[in-house]
């Protein structure tokens, strides 16, 4: 991104003031990733487009709730996609466990982001394929828990039942798997 282009934070601040052109710029900048993630989560293109449309609609309606001091825009956007898609997946499975959007949104934004460092810059330049390689390198048991939770929207109870493992084991695998993912990415790509 060249220096004369507005940052995401600048654009979302303008969107909060009902600036349609700023919204269009954010859309053009992020829609491919949003649609890619939504389609990956929902498992089909039409459903992915519906989630993507609802995601950007929420960006428009809730732009004022985004606080750039507490997190970056793409993380916020990905969390919206994920919440919407998981709600839809759980609804399709006949679940009544909607993720409470407002609570989640405020929760995420209430967590101050760590200051950008070398590792953060590494993350920013990673491509999807590189992250998939690192995911594949995780111990199977940890990767399985991450994928069942993130991509299939299973709760920890459901994962425990599915894998016939104690709940505590699922918690540990999720925590260790997420930490290990970063370690692997540093090993693979920070040289």
């Amino acid at each position, binding site marked *: 991104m060249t220096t004369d282009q507005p940052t995401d934070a600048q654009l979302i601040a303008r969107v909060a003031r009902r600036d349609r052109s700023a919204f269009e710029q954010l859309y053009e900048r992020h829609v491919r990733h949003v649609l890619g993630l939504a*389609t990956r989560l929902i498992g089909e293109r039409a459903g992915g487009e519906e989630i993507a449309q609802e995601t950007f609609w929420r960006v428009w309606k809730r732009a004022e709730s985004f606080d750039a001091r507490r997190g970056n825009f793409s993380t916020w956007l*990905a969390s919206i996609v994920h919440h919407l898609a998981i709600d839809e997946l759980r609804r399709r499975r006949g679940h009544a466990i909607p993720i409470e959007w407002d609570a989640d949104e405020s929760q995420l934004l209430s967590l101050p982001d760590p200051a950008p460092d070398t590792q953060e810059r590494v*993350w920013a330049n990673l491509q999807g394929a590189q992250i998939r390689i690192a995911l594949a390198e995780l111990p199977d048991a940890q990767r399985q828990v991450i994928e069942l939770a993130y991509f299939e929207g299973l709760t*920890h109870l459901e994962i425990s039942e599915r894998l016939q493992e104690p709940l505590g084991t699922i918690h540990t695998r999720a925590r260790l*798997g997420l930490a290990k993912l970063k370690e692997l990415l540093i090993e693979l790509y920070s040289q």
Partner: protein
Amino acid sequence: MQVIDQMGFDPNSHVDELIGVYALDALSADERRTVARHLRVCSRCRALANEALSSVDLVAHSADPIAPSPELKDRLLAQIDADLALSRSRQQPFGALFATPARTFAFAVTLAVMVGLFVFGLSLRTFNLPAQSAPPGAQAQLIAIPSLPTGLLRVSGLTKLGAEQTYEVWLIRNGNPESALMFNVDPEGKVDLWVNYDEPIGNIEQMGITIERAGGSSTPNLNAFVFYGALH
């Protein structure tokens, strides 16, 4: 909070073990709320949660980008234009916005055009009724979305009638005329009126305006059509 309660979870104790499933959105709403409450007051667990959440952000970016269809942007921008139009209308005095049928219709049409055209595939049409015995220059237009049961009739150039007469609007389908409404024009010969039908306007085959005795008629005076024509 069922599981947390079963585990004997104390809201004041650290939540290390739950950080991974929390970051992955794998807790119930109650469980999430309990963890979030703790994170608000515990910087140690909050730092762990940040780490886990940034890893989840990486997982999110493992999906390959996909180019959207042009329609996705069209639909979104149509939604946003409608939202902006609604916001602007809210800033106007209510009375001003709906002071006349024309203004009300203009507002409805603005929304319909912006949302309907793109999202629902609706189309706005103007039907010009052919003059029969109307004064030169007189016009009657029905502006409507054919799939909706309401349209705006805009009349101009007619003579204002005396108390003993009325203009009557006829909607005709399968050869059967139904009286829709009666009206008179203002001193300038104009009037804007809502026309309501019990089916989509597009189902009406012909439309006419006659001059009848005050109080209206059950059938149109065939010799008194001011305007008459097909709506196709």
